[in-house]
């Protein structure tokens, strides 16, 4: 079910793009990521708006007062919270549902990239039955398309990297390879989380957000460092697209990038 509904269509879409753009798998990953992001734009926009409203709620004086008032009565606090949501027109599920719908897409995209990069016998053995030979006939109006199976093995070279291997740049005089892509992935992840963060009035929440802002980029950077560069490309394309999407929706706050004054912090 999962394979036939998500993975196989994704693998064939990746191969279709790969063929269409002249057998460049790196570019195919980037383009496919962008297409998926564009298709899921309405969901993502809804999620961004809802989570923004939820975050803004944390700084709302009325909500802060409610929390203080009912801090020892959890049931009453929950009731008041729902009333507050209703009053402000916030739907808590509106921020969760799009995320839940997107999860299978993101995981499917990730798994299909891995499977399409088949670079060992078992992977290739599993990949071949998933390739739909009739795709060429379906797209017969594009004469340049090849037989899908003839595309194998994929050209794994993209810029300076091998898509199937972790990326490193070797500079003469330095004994180790520099993980440029992993650094860029970590940096864009950090940029993304910083730019979209809404300062919270609650110091504990603010501290937790700050930890997450560091933890997530490091984790993403670690995966980009240790996994195949094709996946790092996907992380990078995804991060950049999200940043652009937030910018278009006007959810950016460049002030988040500037160091906060101590006085502000004390307040």
């Amino acid at each position, binding site marked *: 079910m999962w394979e036939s509904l998500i993975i196989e269509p994704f693998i064939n879409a990746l191969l279709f793009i790969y063929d269409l753009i002249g057998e460049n798998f790196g570019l195919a990953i980037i383009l496919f990521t962008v297409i998926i992001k564009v298709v899921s734009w309405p969901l993502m926009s809804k999620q961004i708006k809802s989570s923004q409203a939820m975050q803004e709620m944390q700084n709302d004086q009325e909500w802060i007062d409610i929390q203080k008032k009912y801090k020892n009565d959890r049931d009453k606090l929950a009731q008041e919270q729902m009333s507050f949501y209703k009053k402000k027109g916030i739907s808590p599920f509106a921020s969760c549902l799009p995320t839940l719908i997107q999860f299978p897409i993101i995981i499917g995209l990730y798994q299909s990239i891995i499977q399409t990069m088949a670079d060992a*016998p078992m992977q290739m*053995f599993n990949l071949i039955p998933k390739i739909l030979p009739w795709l060429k006939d379906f797209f017969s109006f594009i004469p340049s398309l090849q037989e899908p*199976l003839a595309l194998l093995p994929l050209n794994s070279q993209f810029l300076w990297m091998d898509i199937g291997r972790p990326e490193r740049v070797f500079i003469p005089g330095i004994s180790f390879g520099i993980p440029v892509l992993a650094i860029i992935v970590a940096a864009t992840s950090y940029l993304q989380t910083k730019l979209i963060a809404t300062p919270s009035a609650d110091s504990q929440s603010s501290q*937790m957000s700050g930890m997450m802002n560091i933890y997530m980029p490091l984790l993403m950077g670690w995966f980009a460092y240790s996994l195949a560069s094709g*996946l790092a490309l996907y992380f990078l394309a995804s991060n950049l697209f999200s940043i652009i999407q937030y910018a278009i929706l006007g959810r950016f706050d460049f002030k988040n990038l500037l160091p906060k004054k101590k006085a502000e912090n004390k307040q």
Partner: protein
Amino acid sequence: MKKKIFTTLIILSSLLLFFAGCTRVGTASSWPGYSIIKETAYLSHESQTFAIDIENGIPLWKYPSDKESSRQVYAAPATDDGVVVVGDYDGVLTALDQTNGTKKWEFDGANDRYIGSVLISDGMVYAPNSDHYLYALDTEGNLEWKFEGVGPNWTKPLADENMIYLASMDHNFYAFDKEFSQNDLVNAEDGSKTLLTNAKWSLDLEMAVVGDPVIDDGVVYVVTIEGRLFAIDVKSEKLLWSFNNNGNLAAVWSTPVVTEEAIFVADVDGNIHAVDVLDGSALWPSPFSAGGKVVGSGAAYEEGAVFATDEGKIFIINLNKEPKTIANLENPIYSTINFIGEKIIFAPASEASLLTAIDLNGFKVWAFLPPE
């Protein structure tokens, strides 16, 4: 809020760990590769290579002595002149002493995985690598020449008296002279004069080849992942015929089994096709359905062939399309089947055995599992 951040953090971490867990990159897998020379089987699995007495399944030696988590080796070892040569996923070719498994030399000039087996012929080692090169070394591990194709090489090269043949994933079938002039070599990237610029001749098969080809009486039989069997006359350098059974031959991973009367080809749909050696026509109106995918190469048996499926079925099929089931085992079989004496030897995908021998009635003769 704090709870929400914690929950988000846990979800994201779990998701990323899931991503890491489900990736196959870096933990690539295959099935055990083995070869049998005289009374000994040489088998590679995970990080180790074993020599096993095929009379009783008793291990003679292993290399390295302890498992190494960073090493992966699945290519079937090649043996000749007292050495066993095997390539690993780190691109290292290791030559071991055939009698005790001690390391004799190592070649680390490749940049990618050794998936196909090495060929040793006339004092030379021919090693196909996924980095698009075929490496030719002397039996001391010194690089004599290398040839760069345009795709990975996963199949074992072939040799006849004068030539070396390589079927590549880059869709080409290459032929190289065993003897060549130094003028054929140009400077490689590392400055050495080892790069062979052109094969003597080549044929475009239009699809990748992952199954080892076979040579018989001056004709090479090679199969592609599209599901087409080619017969190539290496003397005339011409394609004799090709066979795809009107599109009914699926992708082929196994080596065709060549007998006097027929060529038996097994595909991943589990169909066995019998093909006329002379003109490539189908000998049966419809293929025999084995009931499971056939990945590993079969072996000739009398006038037929013995095959195994990924559902653990081992069977013989003769030229009259009469099947005889030998065994129905619990584990899938992806490896090559060998028929030695009265024993059928194979490497099941099993926790209980890396190499197994059964008799013609399907009873286990021995099972080899390395001691922990």
